[in-house]
Every structure is written in structure tokens, then in C-alpha cells.
């Protein structure tokens, strides 16, 4: 028997071609850049000399709001096929199914990291004048600065994969997005408003903990002093978000492998 022509690179090329053609995804990526840079610029206006801000913290300041965009990016990538009833055509061509999800994960990771990198460069550019005025340069020889800038890209990429996992698992855009926002952003805020040993411990293990990757050392120390939960190292927090993305994608893979693609599935 000849080897199958349905190779992973081919499935990847197919998914990449489809996803880059989806207008919503292009708009979402563009919004991520605009929101990150716009927020960073706006917040830099509030920074004052002698405040807690550093050059790096001003450059990544748009991350909280931009997270919503990256979640939407992943959720859209994971649900678009079901929303448009296209899923069955895809799985007719790739009946083993899992290569499709793997390809979507690769494309989402590439799209999100490129978008995050562009958003970061845009944020650095629009805050440049203000950082000069405040005397807060961006020193790329400084390990903390490098960690925060790289952390911005890594965290947003992981967040997009969390969105993809939830989207592919739940198959409904609105339900998946609301679940994602609650898990990544809102629950964290709520627990922050009600500090205590238990809420602080839960907070430390939510996907939003990945923001520690892009938080400065001084600010981390202040946060840890106020929290009675465990204190994760920034890189450990980064691994934690990656773990969340992996678990959700694995759950989506299980549903995909075992379950039906039902005719009413959208």
C-alpha cells in the first residue's frame, strides 16, 4: 500500500490557507495591535517621574485589555469551522481529525505570536516619546526588561491557545469566549477584590497568572507581599498558562476523536 498523501505539512498548509483568509481573524489581530498600543500610549500619559513605572512596564501596559483580543483570536480559530458548518468538509478530507486540531494550534500560535510581536513593537514605538521625557529607556541588556518583553509575546500566545482549546472543546463561539473571559480575566479580578488564603491560592493557579511573566520585579514583590497564596516564579507562571492551554487542547482532542460531528453542529 502506498503511503497516505494526507501528511501533516499538507493539513497545515490547508488550515493556514483557510485561517489567513478569515476576515474576522484578520480584524481581530489588527484590533489586538491597536488596543495594545493604544492602551500603552494612554497609560503612559498617566505615568509620572518617581512613580513605579519602568520602560518595560510602559511598553507592555496594554496587555490586560489586549488579552481579550488574543482570547477572541483563539476562540474564533477554534469555532469558525463549526459556526459555518464547514467542519464536516474538513473532516471528510482528514478523517483522523487530530491533525486538523494540531494544525490549527500551530497556525494559531504563529498568528498570535506574530500579532503579539507587532503589538509590542507598536507599543514601544508609541510610548517612545513619553519614555524619553520620563527618562525611562528600554534597556535590552537588562534581563528583567528582556523577560517582560518576551513574556508579553509568550503570554499572549499561550492565551490565544487557551482560547483555541476552549473553542474547539465547546464548539460555540459565544459560550467558549464567555468561559474564557471568566477563567482568564473576570474570576481573577473578583478574587483580587476578596483577598484571603483560599482566593489568593486559586488566583495563583488561574491562566491569568501568566501575566507574572511580564510584570516587573518590584511590582511582583509588592503583589507577593499582599498575597497569602503561593508565589510562582515568572517562568513557572508561564509554564502554568502553557499547561492550561495543553490540558484544554487535550480535552478538545478527546472530544474530537471520540465524538460525532453531528449534522446540527454549527
Amino acid at each position: 500500500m502506498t503511503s497516505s498523501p494526507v501528511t501533516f505539512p499538507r493539513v497545515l498548509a490547508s488550515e493556514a490557507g483557510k485561517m489567513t483568509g478569515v476576515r474576522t481573524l484578520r480584524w481581530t489581530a489588527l484590533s489586538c495591535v491597536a488596543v495594545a498600543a493604544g492602551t500603552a500610549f494612554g497609560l503612559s500619559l498617566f505615568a509620572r517621574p518617581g512613580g513605579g513605572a519602568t520602560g518595560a512596564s510602559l511598553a507592555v501596559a496594554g496587555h490586560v485589555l489586549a488579552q481579550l483580543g488574543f482570547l477572541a483570536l483563539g476562540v474564533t480559530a477554534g469555532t469558525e469551522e463549526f459556526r459555518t458548518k464547514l467542519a464536516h468538509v474538513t473532516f471528510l478530507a482528514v478523517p483522523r481529525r487530530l491533525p486538523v486540531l494540531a494544525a490549527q494550534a500551530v497556525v494559531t500560535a504563529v498568528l498570535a505570536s506574530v500579532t503579539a510581536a507587532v503589538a509590542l513593537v507598536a507599543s514601544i514605538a508609541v510610548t517612545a516619546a513619553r519614555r524619553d521625557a520620563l527618562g525611562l529607556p528600554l534597556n535590552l541588556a537588562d534581563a528583567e526588561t528582556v523577560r517582560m518583553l518576551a513574556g508579553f509575546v509568550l503570554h499572549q500566545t499561550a492565551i490565544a491557545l487557551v482560547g483555541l482549546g476552549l473553542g474547539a472543546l465547546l464548539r460555540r463561539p459565544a459560550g467558549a469566549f464567555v468561559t474564557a473571559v471568566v477563567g482568564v480575566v473576570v474570576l481573577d479580578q473578583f478574587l483580587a477584590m476578596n483577598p484571603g488564603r483560599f482566593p489568593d491560592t486559586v488566583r495563583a493557579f488561574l491562566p491569568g497568572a501568566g501575566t507574572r511573566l511580564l510584570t516587573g520585579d518590584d511590582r511582583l514583590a509588592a503583589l507577593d507581599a499582599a498575597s497569602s497564596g503561593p508565589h510562582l516564579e515568572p517562568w513557572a507562571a508561564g509554564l502554568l498558562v502553557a499547561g492550561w492551554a495543553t490540558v484544554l487542547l487535550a480535552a478538545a482532542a478527546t472530544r474530537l476523536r471520540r465524538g460525532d460531528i453531528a449534522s446540527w453542529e454549527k
Partner: protein
Amino acid sequence: MSARGRGATLPRVVAAEWTKLTSLRSTWWAALASVAVSAALTYLSANASSGDPGYDPLGDLTAGLLLTQLGPLVLGVLAGTGEFSTGGFRTTFVAVPRRWPVLAAQAAAVAGFALPVAVASVVAAVLAVLPAASSRDLPVNLTEGSTPQELAGTVLFLTGLSLFGLAVGALVRRAVPALVTVIGLTLVLPVVLTLAVEPTGTTFAEGVTPQEAAVNTITTLLPSGAGGLLVTPSDALTVPGAPDLGAVGGGLVLAAWALVPLVAAALRLRLKDVK
């Protein structure tokens, strides 16, 4: 004139939209989530703080509001985008060719549904503080002081948020972008703005800096800030640097957040083709 001759009158369109809204499963899920979240979070919060000296059970009534807001927002957005995501709008606009009455009817149906849901959420919150209050033998008197305003304000706030969600949903027409917009404006932007001022650590003795005044003004004018004024007792401290709108002013700002996108959606329906 016979009943047959009048066609799609507004009450009939409202009745049709009501049927559509209440036949969606997502509507009931959002309603259930709103009530359940309100009850659970208020209960947990009341239990956690009931040991504090000088504990006031009524102080916990709005403890779950941050998350309860999501239910009405999602309900509104899905009501606004539902027709466009399923193609159902073709049938609807064939039946009501003038189109804008559909939007007005959707607003009426959503408000009519969200209001009892909001009342149920508030009742759930009241019931949820009772165990903590009785464990300390504290009375729960809902008719005294600012409590009646707080309760009524919460109901109006939640109902207003559902209309804000509907308006953005009808304008944007796609569920995820609409949800990003409303959740970003209502839940996330206020936090981002707070973070902007927090690390500077100035003391109040120095007065309000222009930056803080700006942040507080923007926060107050956002849907959640404006709605929060409805809930806040009128004798509470005003937010430093922000305009003192009062409960009525806050309610009007929230109404504007619903009305402006709703009018824009109506114009979009009127001027553009429906594909």
C-alpha cells in the same frame, strides 16, 4: 379594519421577538447564570466577612455584582446577534420590512426579560446574606437607609446592561466581537485604568492629581461606573476628581451607552442591504 389587514403592528412584533428570545437556550442559561452567580458569590462573601467586628450583612448585597453583570451582558449580546448568526433575520425582515420596529421590539423583549431576571438576582443576593446574618443574630432590614435605593439600583443597572449588550450586538452583528467590546468596556477597562494610577502611590493628603482625576472621570463614565452610581448610596463619598452625577445622572449615562449603539444599529439596518 380587520385584524388581518393591519399586518405587523408593534405589539405583534414585540410578541414575536419575545417568543424568539425565550425559545433560545442561551437566554435561559444567561438568566440562570446571573441568578446563580449572584446567590453563590454573595453567600461566600457574606460567610467570609461575617466574622469581622462591626459586620453589616447589608454591606455584602452587591458583593457578587462584578460577575453577576456578565449574565445580562451576554443575554443582550446574544439576543442582538442571534438573528444574524443563524440567518433568521431574512425571515424576520421579510415579515417586518421597515426593520427598525424589530430593533425596538427586541429592546422591549430583552428589557422585559432582563428585568425579572435582575429582580431574581437581587432576591437571590438578599436570601444569600440571611444565613450569615442569622448566625450573628443581626437583623436584615431592607427598608432602612440607602438599602431600597441599592436594591432598586442594582435591578436597573443589570437591566440597563442587557440593553447595552443588545445594542452592541445588533450593531456589530457577530457574537465574539460584540462580547469583546462589551466585556472590555464594562469589566476590563476600569481595572486597566485603576492599575494606571495605583503604582504611583501618592497619598490623598496631596490632593487629586490631574491624572487621577482623568482616570476617575473616565471610569465613572464607563457603563459599569455609571451603573455603579445607581447602586451607590447618595450620601456616600464621591469619587475624587470625577463629576458628581448622582444616581439619576449615572442612570442617564448608562441609558446613553445603550441608546447610542442602538440608534447606530437602526441606521445601519435602514441604510444598508441585509445580505
